[in-house]
């Protein structure tokens, strides 16, 4: 099975559904150590993507990522908006072919771009605590030639571990950093939604 941008309509719907189902929980997280708007920001972006989904489906990969990046850039705002826009625009730049290892390399480069945009890295209690280990696992599993199902299950585990790890981190990036010690004991909202995205994507790809 080769995956094409035709996957985006069901994929966007799945992410939208999962984020909606967890909206209150995420808001509680973002309120505890942020400003409470993270879910609304993502939902605005997902809504915009849903409206573009049919236009994205027939595109090739670079064009699809480009359209997704520009849509997210114009719709989301906030810290997460610029970071996800950066991620997708970088995917557009680095996307080469439809192979898993090609995507893995592009994704690693894109996560690198996000690190640069946010001047952040793992261990700072952000979405990077999900995206960095996920990108790494993806590359390793692709190299190791794991089956798609195995790989997706693994990514889900890594993402879940990543989000859980943020609980005991001291926030040094994002709004939570203003709270100093008071950020301890709370999961990062942006890490949580990153994990929800990974899980939704895995579910869709497994049944594709």
């Amino acid at each position, binding site marked *: 099975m080769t995956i094409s941008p035709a996957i985006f309509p069901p994929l966007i719907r799945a992410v939208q559904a999962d984020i909606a189902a967890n909206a209150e929980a995420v808001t509680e997280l973002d*309120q505890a150590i942020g400003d409470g708007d993270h879910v609304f920001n993502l939902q605005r972006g997902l809504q915009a993507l849903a409206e573009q989904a049919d236009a994205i489906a027939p595109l090739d990969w670079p064009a699809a990522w480009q359209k997704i990046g520009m849509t997210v850039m114009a719709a989301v705002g906030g810290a997460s*908006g610029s970071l996800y826009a950066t991620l997708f625009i970088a995917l557009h730049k680095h996307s080469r072919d439809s192979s898993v290892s090609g995507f893995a390399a592009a994704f690693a480069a894109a996560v690198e771009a996000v690190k640069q945009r946010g001047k952040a890295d793992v261990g700072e209690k952000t979405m990077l605590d999900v995206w960095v280990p996920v990108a790494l696992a993806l590359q390793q599993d692709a190299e190791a030639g794991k089956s798609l199902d195995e790989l997706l299950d693994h990514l889900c585990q890594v993402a879940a571990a990543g989000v859980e790890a943020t609980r005991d981190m001291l926030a040094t990036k994002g709004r939570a950093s203003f709270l100093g010690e008071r950020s301890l004991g709370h999961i990062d909202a942006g890490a949580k939604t990153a994990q929800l995205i990974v899980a939704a994507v895995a579910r869709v790809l497994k049944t594709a």
Partner: protein
Amino acid sequence: MKKFIDDPNSLLDTSLQGFAKAHADILELNLEPHFVYRKQRKSGKVALISGGGSGHEPLHSGFVGFGMLDAACPGQVFTSPTPDQMMAAAEAVDGGAGVLFIVKNYAGDVMNFEMAGEMLALPNASVLVNDDISLPKSHSIGRRGVAGTTIVEKIVGAAAEAGADLASCKALGERVNQATASLGVALTSCTVPALGHPTFALAEDEMEYGVGIHGERGRETVKLAGASEIVAQLAEHIADELQIGTGQHALLHVNGFGATPLIELHSIYELAWQQFNRRGLNIQRSLVGNFTTSLDMAGCSLTLTLLDDEMLAYWDAPVNTAALRWGC
């Protein structure tokens, strides 16, 4: 939530439309993407653009007009605007002398303005405002930009109006920012319309010391104190930070966060004036009122800017915006 709204999702658009109608003599509104811009523009002038999440009104849209900003890009409530807004605004107000972005130091604002600056095909630079001294200078992402932004925008706005070039405007903005320190306390959180309830709760005898402007918790929760005690503490931190000395000239800005009545803000101003006067400072200018707000938060901040002659002259220069107007 008790608010005058139909739907949190339409509030910003309706509000911007009303704002543009109420000030149709000085500005225009672009809806897709959102930005507010000066009606009368001047070619050869550096274009000043600011922006940030909504909910801080009159900042920034209330500062668009002659002698201050050329455009403001409002994001959703407490959410930084998107790069396409800044780019479209820049193209609309470009006068051929480059674009200066005035950006409050918040991750979202910084990154979105940065993306706009990278993509924009016009010469551009930015001034980062980080006047909030509630965090140490060494803080991992730097200090936040709060009420001092008004001072930066006014002074740089006057310089741009007077014909200063992009590099000078940027340098002046950074100089004002350096000379400015702010510190705020909150008595309540605020209610973000999309959220529908206050972002955090405080007991009747508690306040948040060292808060930003997004209804989040501050540096620490402390016992509520009398006005004199609160002001003495804020003033001491600010005096230490700016290392103020006898005979220096300054602008003192008491900023309300939204729900604190003017009768209290003026009383805070008196107490703060006493504090700085006692330290030998010469308070030459003042600004008291709700300028950098957090929706309906009760609280206030003190901002002190040490003025040199150039800054003073630019502060006094004519300005005609919705929220600040004098000399014309």
